[in-house]
């Protein structure tokens, strides 16, 4: 089977769509031109796989402005010829992205990221621009964007959102943002703050992710080399700390189906896959009822003899030579993930087979 682009990463002005053929272990890519400027953030619509948003730098009159926009990929890329991986320069007539609309934020400053409504119909996005969180409604098959509501971070000094995440829980009415060392939760219905974890990290918070299966659990990472797991009902203390990286942690991601698997990428050039069993939704191995898995599990008896797993580092991936800025799980295969480093190297890895079977069986 073929995976749909687990990660789309941007090199200046280009978007590469990487296809990974799992059976033949072949990587192929398509290149799309992104002429508007260098891309700082990218995210794909959950409803339409051809639609994506980017945040990009636009340089005009020796000013650098970061803007957001919604794009549609040309229809040909999917059926188009895949380049062979050993001939990267053979990018004949790269196609352009089709601009659907700008997320015009001239009054609100630089967009740092754009978030799609998780599992939505591709009609709602949130953009974080300086100290504003803007909720956009996309209409007319995403060709028009209007601000439906907004929230502003007030405080002394120049406050600026550095990261955000739209919670998939509570009917997608919550948003978590990071600015400096604080993590804030927002209620999108009233656009008001619901919690604030001051000094969540010793230094800047770089990334956030929601546990897909436990609605109050949140992971964060930052410049203090730590990954912290929070229960937002009790924000005084983190539930768990991970201190495995030796430099800033730039990205943290929960596995979409097995939330004990946590992926982190750091500027110490490492990617670490951790197994946080104790705070996952399956704390003692597989706890699904017998009825549910009667067809899938034949050798169910072995499970009972299994020891509960301890929190542990599953493995450390050191293929990167420079800082790793992004890690992402495949949306198609829960055992596949990719990481991207500064030098443009994309590494695709699999969860170790032994662990995979341990979790499944």
């Amino acid at each position, binding site marked *: 089977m073929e995976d749909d682009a687990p990660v789309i990463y941007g*090199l*200046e002005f280009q978007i590469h769509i990487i296809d990974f053929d799992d059976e033949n272990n072949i990587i192929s890519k398509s290149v799309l031109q992104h002429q508007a400027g*260098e891309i700082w953030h990218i995210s794909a619509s959950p409803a339409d796989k051809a639609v994506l948003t980017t945040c990009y*730098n636009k*340089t005009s009159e*020796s*000013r*650098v402005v970061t803007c957001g926009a919604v794009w549609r990929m040309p229809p040909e890329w999917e059926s188009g010829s895949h380049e062979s991986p050993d001939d*990267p*320069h053979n990018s004949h007539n790269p196609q352009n992205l089709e601009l659907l609309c700008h997320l015009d934020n001239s009054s609100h400053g630089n967009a740092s990221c754009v978030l799609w409504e998780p599992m939505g119909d591709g009609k709602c996005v949130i953009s974080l621009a300086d100290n504003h969180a803007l909720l956009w409604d996309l209409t007319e098959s995403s060709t028009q964007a209007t601000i439906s509501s907004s929230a502003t971070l007030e405080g002394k000094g120049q406050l600026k959102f550095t990261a955000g995440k739209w919670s998939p829980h509570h009917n997608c009415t919550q948003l978590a943002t990071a600015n400096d060392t604080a993590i804030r939760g927002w209620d999108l219905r009233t656009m008001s703050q619901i919690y604030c974890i001051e*000094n969540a990290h*010793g*230094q800047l918070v770089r990334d956030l992710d929601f546990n897909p299966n436990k609605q109050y659990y949140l992971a964060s990472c930052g410049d*203090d*080399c730590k990954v912290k797991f929070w229960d937002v009902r009790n924000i005084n203390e983190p539930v768990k700390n991970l201190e495995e990286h*030796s*430099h*800033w942690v730039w990205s943290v991601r929960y596995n979409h189906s097995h939330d004990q698997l946590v992926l982190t990428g750091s*500027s*110490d*050039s490492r990617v670490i896959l951790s197994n946080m069993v104790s705070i996952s939704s399956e704390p003692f191995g597989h706890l699904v009822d017998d009825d549910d898995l009667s067809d899938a599990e034949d050798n169910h008896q072995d499970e009972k003899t299994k020891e509960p797993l301890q929190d542990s580092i599953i493995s450390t991936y*050191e293929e990167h*030579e*420079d*800082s790793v800025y992004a890690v992402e799980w495949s949306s198609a295969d829960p055992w596949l993930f990719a990481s991207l480093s*500064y*030098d*443009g*190297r994309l590494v695709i890895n699999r969860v170790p087979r032994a662990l995979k079977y341990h979790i499944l069986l």
Partner: protein
Amino acid sequence: MDGDINASAPATTPPDSDPARKRRVHGMLKLYYGLNEEGKTVDQAESMDPCDINGPHFDPEVYLNKLRRECSLGELMDQESCMVKQIRSLDSDMQTLVYENYNKFISATDTIRKMKNDFKKMEDEMDCLSTNMASITDFSARISGTLQDQHAQITKLSGVHTLLRKLQFLFELPARLNKCLELQAYAQAVSSHRRARCVLQQYRHMPSFRGIQDDCHAIMDKLAQELRQKFRDGGSSAKDLSECVELLLQLDEPAEELCDKFLSHAQSRLEADLLGLEAELRPPLSSGPTAVTDPYTGPARRLSVEPTAGSPTGPTSLNNPFLFPSLRTDILEFIDRGCNEFVSSLCLVIASYQELFVNRPQEGELASKNIPQMAIGKLHAFVDALATRYFSLVERRIQEEKSVGDNSLLVRALDRFHRRLQAVAKLLPGSAVPSQGTEIVVRAARERIKQYLAALQSFYLNSLTDVRQALAAPRLGGSSAGGGSHLGGPATGKDALASLPELLSTLSASILNQIKSVLASVHLFTAKDITFSNKPYFKGEFCSHGVRESLVVNFIKFVCQSSRQFCESAGDRGGSTPPALLLLLSRLCLDYETSSITYILTLTDEQFLVQHHSPVTAVTALCGEAREAAQKLLNHYVKVQGLIISQMLRKSVETRDWVNTIEPRNVRAVMKRVVEDTTSIDVQVGLLYEEGVRKAHSSDSSKRTFSVYSSSRQQTRYAPSYTPSAPMDTNLLSNIHKLFSERVEIFSPVEFNKVSVLTGIIKISLKTFLECVRLRTFGRYGLQQIQVDCHYLQMYLWRFVSDENLVHFLLDEIVGSTAHRCLDPAPMEQSVIEVICERG
């Protein structure tokens, strides 16, 4: 008759020689009188031969025949003549013997005849005597016959006389008893009564005796009453009392009751003592927590000012001398009073009790055997009950003894307490009291150790606060030494820095002194002249578990732990701990690891002669802990200092508009500040840590590597990077470059030396710089400014690190990344950069 044979035998055999013949004659005589048994047997053995002329079995026929057969005629003739000669000589011998003895026979016969005459005379006299005697006997029989009647009468009379005297005694007894009662001669009364009691008992069926008995009983009851009264009043001396008891016992009073009474009487007195003691305890308890807490807040201050001296009443009385005038007797006084009043009277009671009930010889019918056992049982219960109360009082008092200033007082008090209980132990061997007392002492000692640990801990924390203050306000410390160097920031900073080693040495010295003084105080518990020091607890467990483990080892652990807490808390709450303190503590922990722990533990072991029966914490384990703490502190120091510089760099990169910056003319001030700060950190660390080892230290390092850095590597990397058509080349080159360089661990543990620490800090700072640069977009002049800044850093930072290539590598990366992020990457001429940097 035999004599005839003998006489005839020698006649037939002539004697050989004179002496032999004589002997033979004597032998014959002897034989005759049966004198010589042995000789006879010998003779017999010799003379069985019938031919032996001298033997008794001599047979003349055989002899003759033998001679005739064996001898010639001549020989026979000779023999014959010889024989004749011998016979003749024997005859003459016999004649002389007969002649010699004849006279004696004559005189003997005379004597016998004379004796016969004398005896006849004597026989007559004896006859006369016997007749006289017979007449005497006759007379005497007649006299005694006449006297017999009178004698019987006299005997009877004397018997009546004694009976009458006894009766008189009996009849007079009530009166006599009364008189005794009046005179209070109880002992006499009792003994009189005892003498009469049996008789009265026996003849009670006779009305008169019954009357006397009743009278006596009435009187004796009265007497017993009086005695009991006296006993109950208790005012009397112990001797009186014991006399009382003795008399009462003799009066068949039930011993059990007496014991009870005696004890209850004693109890009332002892309880008065106890109440007195309790009264001493009470005022401080009722007058609130101030008195109790005061000495508790006191110790740290007092410890720091005056570690060993000082009286325990000091802080309280200082605070409020009028409210509590002499309200607290010190513990020695308290125990003294307890010993003198309670314990000594308890001993007295025990002694007299035992005298009365237990040890007295049981006489006659009183000796119903269970009295001593019963009495001892009662005594034990009594002593136990009272001792429990006494102990609870003592314990309460000991618990109040919280000031740790002067331990000797407590130890002396405990010693006295313990010593006095030994008296009880001697008096009452099976009692649990002394062992309970020992337990109290043990508990007190344990408590004491805990208090000392707490005092040490608070002392440590206080000294840390002092150090903190000294670091925060260096002018106070520096003004005395530094004089007029009030030139603002850098000067005060240097003062603080200069005092770091002093602070360290004073800190460690004061801690060590404190430990020593505490050890000395605790050592009092095991001094030789203290009675309880030879108890097994104080010999073993107190030394090993108490002092070594709970006091010394726990304190060292506490030092390590509290140091580690600095790392943990400070990391999350924004670094409230000054970095210099971290550095200082790290060095302290390291010193502990290398020497102090061993020293302290050796000192302890020597002082307390610890015999490690049970497993104790090993020196190496403690050292490991200290080293871990030192490492953690130093790592944290590096992190904090790195963070400070990082923040500076990050702010400088983030706040600037790098696209629209002007052409660089100077090194930015931030970079100078970074170098300045790094230098001062270098000085600071250098005060406490050794230099450390550098890799590849070249004499003209800056110049040489600079050229490599600028011309060759940088140029080759730049060239393709600003031709957008070939972006892969840049990646390829940088990847190839990275393949050959080692991965840089940014927040990695550092070693205990200056170079390693500085390397850590610089690594963190430059990596931050790198990451920040990558988030920005640069114009042409932005890139050039970064080039200038990096070159400046390059010039100054290489000297601090262990491996200068590391600095080069990171700076390369920074410039390379900037070039990547540059809209118009036109690098500045190397010579221009140099000029700008030289200018500073």
